[in-house]
């Protein structure tokens, strides 16, 4: 949680300094986007664009006294049609604004970099100073203290602290070293201690930073599948309304012929009707909604590689979560000490404490704390025991401990310690098995403690489930998302943790290939699977998953395989990613519903007005009692333009998402955006009409 708070602070500082700049740029860009090449990409707004041009011609004609209506009326309609376009452009520019500003900041980081290109792939070789733009994939560079990493790469030698704040905003430095899961470095980050030798993995323009710049800028933004489908629906509606309006002219002429009174519907009125009817509200805001969705992820420090990934996140119905770091705190905590044989619990606690004094792992520290708090032992420090020889944990021995003169204290995994004691000729007390099993069954890890050839007790190391995670999973269940815990633990331990944390299912003793198989099985059953991962061995599973979030601290292969990168490296954020995806889709649906529902009121405003001269009887449909036919048409056009502006906040922040079931979401959204969409324009148009009449502008 601390991490998130810090990010929020950083973002808000950013926001304040950027706001004025973003607005100024957005206004400028709204005009720039009037370029027809820009407009043609949005079919709904392109129709508005074409007809705005046509009305402008009618206005010029009217200025010369040959117009079909007064120049003042046509002029105002013309102005508001152009405003409609500008408002739509403005929403898009505003959504792009933050990304553009961030991209600019990133670009500045990249510019000044120089790299030390090594002649041979080893530390100490001679190097040339070259510009980062000249580095190619496969070349070797040396990065020393205070150097900027010139390109993405993999550490092949050395270990260093790296400040990645330029990309993540996280000021705490991270360690990067050769081999293992922490070997990836990113161009633009800074080494703050020691040195590393890096093999470049990305040529200029293809690096992580470059991709990030592209992504946040929205330069390469492609329409997502749902966006395309929605666009087809909107284009279909636009075609219908084009047809409805085009055929009104002959119908109007025929009516006049039959009734012997009135004048044909004017082109201005027809175009006004058309623009009001076609779904300009959602058409104008759709692009902003999509950009804002990616931007919301960015604010949570998650970079989506494509809009498609964000949408897919909304569809996810199975979440694969790694136990450690996601469901439980990364470290286990000692909660109890159980003596075996004839040993006194206090004696065991004392020896365990001694064995853990220099053990800097969280587990080790928690043993010291437990001994002090529960058994009242003084907190011994390692300085008091200078003659002690500490034995660190190794993967081979799977034990750690201390040698105090002749006395050898060890703690470690059950089988490792048992073997060790037996090798010294000791006997395993029968009560050990019971103690170990009891702890295992409760989902915890037993840590066996020995003194010389005797086993003296067991430390109960408990996995600590993160606070609030159970409630989180309950919400997910309500949203229809199944959670599956992945762990290397044995099934017994896994089951206990699963029960405590409230996940729906678990995969115990999971190997990387098991993970891949699990994802494939779920996908074969039609489920959409999301997972988070960081290690190289996660890469195949990440590539297979529908939504894959790689930790920024992860390896290069993991980051390549994923379609999102979490800069904070916080696996719990997978859940937030899902929410952002859902919010994006909901916002689109809600605005589309609102936009289409609006049309009913617009018909009531324009149809009686357009046929006022032929059929005064249609006046009974003027239920809003709008002033004059001209004020009615103008009010509808103005409403249509202003509603885009009014809805920009919703487009950018998204429809509020609550983790409830689909039925309730639908009911609430239908009520607000469906019924609201029917009623709002009646009030809006009436209000605008009253103002127009009061101002006597028509």
């Amino acid at each position, binding site marked *: 949680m601390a991490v998130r708070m810090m990010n929020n602070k950083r973002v808000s500082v950013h926001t304040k300094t950027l706001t004025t700049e973003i607005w100024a740029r957005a206004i400028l860009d709204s005009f720039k986007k009037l370029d027809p090449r820009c407009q043609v990409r949005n079919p709904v707004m392109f129709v508005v664009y074409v007809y705005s041009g046509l009305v402008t011609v009618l206005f010029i004609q009217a200025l010369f006294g040959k117009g079909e209506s007064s120049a003042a009326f046509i002029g105002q309609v013309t102005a508001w049609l152009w405003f409609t376009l500008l408002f739509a452009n403005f929403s898009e520019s505003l959504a792009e604004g933050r990304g553009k500003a961030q991209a600019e900041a990133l670009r500045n980081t990249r510019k000044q970099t120089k790299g030390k290109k090594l002649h041979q792939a080893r530390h100490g070789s001679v190097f040339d100073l070259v510009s980062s733009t000249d580095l190619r994939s496969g070349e070797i560079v040396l990065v020393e203290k205070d150097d900027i990493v010139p390109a993405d790469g993999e550490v092949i030698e050395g270990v260093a602290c790296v400040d990645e704040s330029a990309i993540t905003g996280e000021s705490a430095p991270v360690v990067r070293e050769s081999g293992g899961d922490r070997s990836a470095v990113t161009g633009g980050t800074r080494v703050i201690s020691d040195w590393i030798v890096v093999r470049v993995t990305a040529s200029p323009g293809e690096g992580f930073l470059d991709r990030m710049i592209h992504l946040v800028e929205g330069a390469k933004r492609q329409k997502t599948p749902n966006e395309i489908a929605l666009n087809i629906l909107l284009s279909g509606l636009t075609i219908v309304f084009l047809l409805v309006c085009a*055929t009104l002219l002959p119908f109007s002429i025929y009516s006049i012929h039959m009734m012997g009174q009135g004048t044909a519907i004017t082109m201005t009125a027809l175009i006004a009707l058309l623009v009001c009817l076609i779904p300009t509200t959602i058409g104008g805001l759709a692009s902003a909604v999509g950009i804002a969705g990616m931007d919301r992820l960015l604010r949570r420090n998650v970079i989506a590689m494509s809009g498609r990934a964000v949408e897919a996140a909304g569809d996810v119905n199975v979440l694969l979560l790694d136990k450690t770091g996601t469901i439980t705190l990364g470290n286990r905590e000692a909660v109890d000490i159980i003596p075996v044989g004839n040993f006194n619990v206090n004696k065991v606690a004392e020896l365990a404490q001694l064995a853990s004094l220099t053990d800097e792992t969280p587990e080790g520290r928690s043993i010291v704390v437990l001994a002090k708090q529960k058994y009242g032992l003084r907190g011994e420090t390692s300085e008091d025991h200078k003659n002690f020889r500490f034995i660190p944990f190794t993967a081979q021995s799977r034990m750690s401990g201390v040698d105090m003169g002749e006395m050898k204290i060890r703690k470690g995994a059950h089988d490792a310690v048992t073997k060790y004691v037996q090798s010294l000729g000791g006997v395993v007390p029968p009560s050990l098995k019971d103690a170990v099993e009891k702890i295992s069954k409760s989902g915890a890890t037993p840590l066996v403690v020995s003194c010389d050839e005797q086993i003296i007790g067991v430390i109960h190391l408990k996995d600590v489930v993160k606070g609030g995670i159970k409630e989180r999973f309950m919400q997910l269940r309500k949203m229809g998302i199944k959670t599956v815990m992945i762990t290397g633990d044995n099934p017994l331990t896994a089951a206990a943790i699963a029960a405590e944390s409230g996940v729906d299912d678990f995969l115990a003793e999971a190997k990387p290939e098991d993970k891949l198989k699990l994802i494939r099985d779920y996908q074969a059953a039609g489920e959409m699977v999301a997972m988070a991962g960081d290690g190289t061995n996660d890469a195949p599973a990440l590539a297979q998953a529908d939504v894959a979030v790689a930790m920024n601290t992860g390896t290069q292969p993991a980051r390549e395989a994923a379609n999102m990168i979490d800069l904070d490296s916080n696996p719990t954020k997978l859940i937030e990613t899902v929410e952002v995806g859902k919010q994006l889709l909901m916002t689109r649906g809600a605005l589309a519903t609102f936009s289409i529902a609006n049309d009913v009121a617009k018909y009531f405003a324009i149809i009686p007005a357009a046929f006022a001269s032929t059929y005064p009887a249609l006046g009974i449909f003027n239920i809003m009692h709008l002033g004059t036919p001209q004020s009615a048409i103008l009010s509808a056009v103005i409403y249509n333009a202003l509603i885009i502006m009014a809805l920009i906040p919703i487009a950018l922040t998204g429809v509020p998402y609550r983790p409830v079931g689909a039925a309730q979401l639908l009911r609430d959204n239908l009520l607000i955006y469906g019924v609201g969409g029917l009623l709002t324009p009646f009030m809006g148009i009436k209000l605008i009409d009253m103002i127009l009449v009061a101002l006597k502008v028509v």
Partner: protein
Amino acid sequence: MGADLRESEFSPSDKKWGTHEFHLFDRRYHHVRCVDLFDLHSVKRGTDVMIDMAWIQFSLYLAALIGLAKPLGVYMAQVYEGNIPHPMRWLSGLEKAIYQLTGQGKSEEMSWKNYALAMLTFNTAGFLFLYFLQRLQGILPLNPQGLPAVSPDSAFNTAISFVTNTDWQGYGGESTMSYLTQMVGLAVQNFVSAATGMAVLIALIRGFARKKMETVGNFWVDLLRSILYILLPLAVIWSVVLVSQGVPQTFDRSMTAIVVQPASTRVFSEAGPTKDAQGQIRAEQTIAVGPVASQIAIKQLGSNGGGYYNVNSAHPFENPTPLSNFFEVLAILLIPAAFCCTFGVMVKDRRQGWALLTVMSIIFAVFLVIGYSFESRPNPLIAQLGVDQPIGNMEGKETRFGVGESVFWATATTAASNGSVNAMHDSFMPLGGLVPLVMMLFGEVIFGGVGSGLYGMIAFVIVAVFVAGLMVGRTPEYLGKKIESFEMKMALVALLVTPFFVLSLTALALMTSAGKAGIFNSGMHGFTEVLYVFSSAANNNGSAFAGLAANNFFYNVTLGLAMFFGRYWIAIAMLAMAGSLARKQKIPASAGTLVTHTPLFIGWLIATIVLIVVLNYLPVLALGPVIEQLMLNQGMMF
């Protein structure tokens, strides 16, 4: 159907008498009418009773419809899934024999493209056969009347009309088509065009039911099973019921009768006034008979609607009694309603079928009530003349049915794409006439045609599901199938084809002199008539508002095109959708899935359908029936 031919002999001022006077010359009808006239005095006292009777009839009808929908729907699902129910299994030998005869042998599954190709091939062959049958009927047998060849444009129009299950008739049936044409041509198409629609629907349902499959079924098998196990048995049952009510079933030639009042023969006689040896005007009437009952049964069951007689089921031989009326109107909606249940069974979630049936029933009931409330009221202009109209607006209605059954038929026949009539929709009050018009403008999805109604409804469902699905934050899905851009494209093709042809062809007719020449009525009633005729054709209904001379080159061709595209564009789009859906994975439902059988979704689907129709057609409805009613209220009439 079309009463226009005869209408063309009216001057506009005669029109308002409509079909009444025609039947004065029918002996049987004359008798009925005399009784009614006699009864009229007592009717006034019984008004309230009659209106109550209408509600009881409506309720009884809907109960019978929904009660029969389930068993028939389940039966049909079994038929299409290949598990022919035991009582009908004796027909499967015949089915196998037909496959062997036609070289189908072991019928293989088809991709959607092959399915569509088979459907089009079959329908093209049907079209050509029907066209040449009409053109050559003069020299072919079974033509006791010696009727001549049908004109090319009329034959084109009629061929398309029957192949597309529209059964619009620009001609008078009994006086144009020989027995051979009626039986081998039209009656056969009544079966196969209906079966075509059913087959397309079944392919679409399979698209939802299957997963990760390339095929959607075999067209020939679906077609044959539709006819053999569903349409034929039902038609036999209905024929027997209708014969019991007095509908003729004979191969005798028409009878000639001498009428009582020769003065009015100009209007009604088929052969025109003839003079006898003494030089006196002696009017004769030809009373057409023939294999009527069997054709009426299938025209009602198969949402065909093309009657044996020109005035369709207003004719006393087509529809003699209130009981025959009940069965005929039940037949209109029976199969379309039952298909909802078939759908539910085949996609293995019956609630989905009930949800769609509920949507259809609610919209139907609402419009029925609207229509009835306008028709059961007196015509204000006639009321001004001091004429009492205790049972509502009776202009153009049969007294043996009255307002209730007439409105009921009108709503049902236009809800389903049937198009048969038992009253003249043209003579309805403007807003009463709006009801059948709007029912057609719904795109024939409120029950709709057999098969075509439900696949049209599914196009609306796709749009409703898409928007609702987005609102719950998921890529929209229906029955576990993701609704993506391809499905959206196909659904929109289905929803846009009809408004496109209705609006553009209506505009074309009103802009050209050829189009305007056919309009009898002045003012906006003429506009409504043109709008109605194109709505009827593009939606494959075939119902006529009358008041329009449509048997001419302009209308024969434009209506033919509207019928053609209105049928096949939608059918092909739906088959394409079926193919795409069948290929897709089925997503298991979860709490995050949009449920599509709850009252909330039913309401949303109704709202979507109504909104789309309103947005498409509000201006034309305002300029047509609405303005007519408004002006009628002000004392103006067209």
